[in-house]
């Protein structure tokens, strides 16, 4: 067991787990979107889980460091909050805020983070860049909403983990980047009907089931 000090509170964590996981396990919330419990290979792509660690000169994404004995961590310094707010606003600048019609309403991670950081869901000073396609219905089991997706990649990771190969992938890039199940039209070959793990892990309701469109995590 490692003993570490987070926000002046002493917590215990199993040696080797990520600092983010250790904090979450001990009831200390750090905003995060792309973190997958138990992974050894964090993508660190959402840029939200920053913390300051004593001895380091810059904030670090807490999913990329291990919980080590004796480290002193602050999760709520001004520079941490600034990074988190900026990352969050950028995410929201490509997000269709339409919570009333979204199945993830009230359990959406974005709503939780907005409340936690005390920022609005609509970014004030950033232009809104929405994708033209509102919903991609090409998969026989799943519907995908590009303007809800935060491109955390958890659906792709969980799919690969469950089935040995991913039936989803990132496609295109930059502002056009989407998650796609291109070419996967062979219903007999697709495990989606019985799986739907991607819907369960999606933090924002960007993937829905064709059979039960209101089901989310």
């Amino acid at each position: 067991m490692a003993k570490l000090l987070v926000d002046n509170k002493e917590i215990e964590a199993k040696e080797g787990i990520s600092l983010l996981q250790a904090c979450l396990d001990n009831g200390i919330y750090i905003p995060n979107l792309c973190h997958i419990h138990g992974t050894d290979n964090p993508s660190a792509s959402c840029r939200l889980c920053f913390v300051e660690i004593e001895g380091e000169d810059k904030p670090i994404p807490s999913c990329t460091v291990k919980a080590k004995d004796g480290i002193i961590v602050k999760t709520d310094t001004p520079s941490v909050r600034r990074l988190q707010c900026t990352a969050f606003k950028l995410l929201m600048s490509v997000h269709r805020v339409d919570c009333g019609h979204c199945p993830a309403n009230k359990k959406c991670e974005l709503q939780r983070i907005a409340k936690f950081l005390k920022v609005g869901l609509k970014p004030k000073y950033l232009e809104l860049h929405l994708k033209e396609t509102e919903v991609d219905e090409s998969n026989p089991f799943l519907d995908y909403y590009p303007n809800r997706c935060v491109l955390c990649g958890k659906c792709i990771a969980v799919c690969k983990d469950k089935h040995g190969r991913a039936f989803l992938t990132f496609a295109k890039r930059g502002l056009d980047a989407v998650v796609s199940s291109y070419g996967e039209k062979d219903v007999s070959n697709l495990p989606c009907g019985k799986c739907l793990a991607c819907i369960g892990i999606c933090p924002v309701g960007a993937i829905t089931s064709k059979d039960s469109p209101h089901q989310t995590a």
Partner: protein
Amino acid sequence: MNQENSLEAEEKVILDDIASRLKVFGRERGELIPILQMIQERHAYIVEDAIKMTAEHLGIAICETYGVATFYNQFRFHPPGKNQIKVCLGTACHVRGGDIILENFERKLEIRDGETTPDREFSIERVVCVGCCALAPVAIVNETVQGHMAPSKVEGLILGFKIEKEKAEREKQKSEPAQ
């Protein structure tokens, strides 16, 4: 209908060629981009079914192949048009409103950049700096540099091609009964 049939036949020729070429390549993941480059080099664009063929050859998922192919700007998914329009969006052209010129072409031809009109007459591409920034905003239409582009010039260029095409067709019709 006729046009559709000829398109299908054309795709079949392309796919047969790719199938014969694939034999040269190994089956390691690392061959994915070289294969895509080969397809693009030989046929100027990547046919939809070629993605499936490549995936099957390498034993990887179709969607993964698609993901890689769409990530790189060098790969096209539409056949080039007879008249190729390249709109520069380099720094100087961007500052002088190159995106407006691109949008004008897109609206006028009713296609997006990277696409080809259904009659294969026009295709639009965005490029980054063609080396004549003093003429910004620049478009390259069939190897001819068009400097100081303006919306009215876009209209004029396209109209010019359409008139030329009509003229060619009229002359063809005129000469046919004579044969």
